[in-house]
């Protein structure tokens, strides 16, 4: 008898005929059934596990938002929005924090858009294969991973102390600009990258210079993508508290900043300050502050989504 290929041999080196393979004996049928059942149960457990992980995360989000809304709703009133902070929870408000955040957000927008988009245009459209350009790329990817508190320390040493700007809105906005710059650069480069090359070729063919091509044709086409990135960066800047605390932003401010050299407070700092106190009344104020902060962020994010859906599809 010649030897059959190993695939056809079974336990105890018994050789099966073709007939046996089609009709397995009772024992292996039973083993197969048990195995199939076990595999079916495992399958069901696995599916349940990953579905519950997803549902847990969604429920967490839901609980987070509703519990904060319920905590803060009672303190939210016109007085709360239009009053300055106070030692007394009943009279405390967030007027100075709202104005501080608006000052900070708009100035950060100004600096970060100017330098961030400029850097993105240079790297994506104009840069050659010089060594310095790869160093720039490396430092951008490094900066994207640096904790925000480290930016605060840079701002403290450079803007507050060395340039003697003090604890001003200007120092805060410059620090925040450095913090969000990698976000804007990365988003803007993506937007520029998605502009089709045919547009550049057409402009070059008509004799436009590199800068003219970028300014008149590539940049306008990339505006929706850039705007989306910029808005998300601003949302980040308005929610950050750590760098401002390191800079020494004040926690008790009973005035609205009138110039870029004035001291300031911001919504996240005010929320931090109230949360760190033990009294329940101040915790409720913090929750009300969070509602206002989340409302601002919601506006930013809706704007980003609107821009993306309005102009994103057109190419």
């Amino acid at each position, binding site marked *: 008898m010649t030897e059959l290929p190993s695939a056809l041999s079974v336990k105890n080196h018994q050789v099966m005929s073709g007939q046996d393979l089609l009709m397995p004996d009772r024992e292996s049928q039973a083993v197969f059934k048990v195995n199939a059942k076990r595999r079916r149960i495992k399958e069901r457990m696995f599916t349940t596990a990953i579905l519950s992980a997803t549902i847990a995360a969604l429920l967490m989000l839901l609980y987070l938002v509703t519990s904060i809304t319920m905590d803060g709703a009672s303190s939210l009133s016109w007085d709360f929005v239009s009053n300055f902070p106070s030692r007394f929870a009943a009279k405390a408000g967030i007027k100075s924090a709202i104005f501080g955040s608006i000052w900070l957000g708009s100035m950060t927008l100004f600096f970060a858009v100017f330098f961030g988009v400029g850097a993105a245009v*240079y790297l994506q459209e104009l840069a050659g294969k010089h060594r310095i350009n790869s160093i720039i790329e490396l430092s951008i990817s490094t900066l994207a991973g640096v904790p925000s508190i480290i930016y605060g320390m840079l701002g403290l040493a450079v803007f507050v102390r060395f340039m003697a700007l003090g604890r001003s809105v200007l120092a805060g906005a410059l620090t925040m600009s450095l913090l969000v710059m990698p976000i804007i650069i990365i988003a803007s480069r993506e937007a520029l990258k998605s502009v089709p090359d045919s547009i550049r070729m057409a402009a070059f063919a008509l004799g436009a210079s590199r800068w003219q091509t970028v300014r008149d044709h590539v940049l306008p086409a990339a505006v929706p993508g850039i705007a989306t990135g910029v808005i998300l960066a601003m949302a980040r800047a308005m*929610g950050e508290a750590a760098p401002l605390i390191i800079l020494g932003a004040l926690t008790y401010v009973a005035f609205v900043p009138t110039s870029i050299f004035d001291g300031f407070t911001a919504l996240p700092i005010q929320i931090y300050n109230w949360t760190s106190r033990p009294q329940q009344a101040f915790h409720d104020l913090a*929750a009300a502050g969070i509602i206002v902060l989340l409302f601002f962020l919601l506006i930013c994010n809706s704007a980003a989504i609107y821009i993306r859906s309005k102009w994103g599809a057109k190419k």
Partner: protein
Amino acid sequence: MTSRQWAKISSVQRFREKLVIKSLFICALISVLTTLGIIFILLEESLQFFRHISPLEFFGSTEWAPLFEPRHFGVIPLITGTLLISFGALIIALPLGLGIAIYTAEYAEGWWQKVLKPVLEILAGIPSVVYGYFAVTNVTPFLQFFFDDVEIFNAASASIVIAIMVLPTIASICDDSLRAVPKAVKDGAYALGTRKSEVILHIVVPSALSGILASFILAFSRAIGETMAVTLAAGGTPNMTLNPFQGVQAMTAYIAQVSLGDIAHGSIEYQSIFAVGLVLFLMTMAMNMLSQFIVKRYARKYE
């Protein structure tokens, strides 16, 4: 127009072109300057600090008491505090994040998939001070309800909120790398009669392992650098412990604590935050580089 006028216009234009490109180059250079600035400032102030305190004490002593006499500057309790919180966060976030990624990449379909991802991203967009508030007012009382020995400030509540915070990071990177596994590889396994969960666990997840690992390390580095939630929830007592129900002080929390008080420029407290900041910076840098290295070195290529 004469050729001379043409030449004049084009030379003006060339000059302007050069000027614009140079100024945009300077914009790009700002990021290099920022990186160098961070390294320079951390090193410079740390050197001042190490002139007073020997590095041997800083890295060797296990006592951190910088604000009152007798002063001790041993950074180890701050590092263990940071690590306790970060590891705790990762233990919660890793299985959840990977599970969510498997669900969004392999199971969710149609509009549900389109809605699910942006909704989960909201968790990453909520500012960390909000998570700090949530930890203090909700998570800690919740833990105290179930366990007797939970302190008001404790590492566990910080871990839990940081886990929620980094969940979208892990989920979205894992989702991307799970999707990168080619359909042909999965179909091959299905053709052999494998069940969906078996394909995922034995084929898809191992193939995407480099991306999954990279996301874990990135989340770890985020957790280390997180400030507000850690400061609010874990407290300000340097404490070398493995008990997550006790208060600990993380490195970021120390930096924030000192900054909130009035510190004189040039004092040893002022310099000490830069020494701690340097340790923090080096740790996060190492993590980020490791994660990039894993992606580059171990990413599986499909032809």
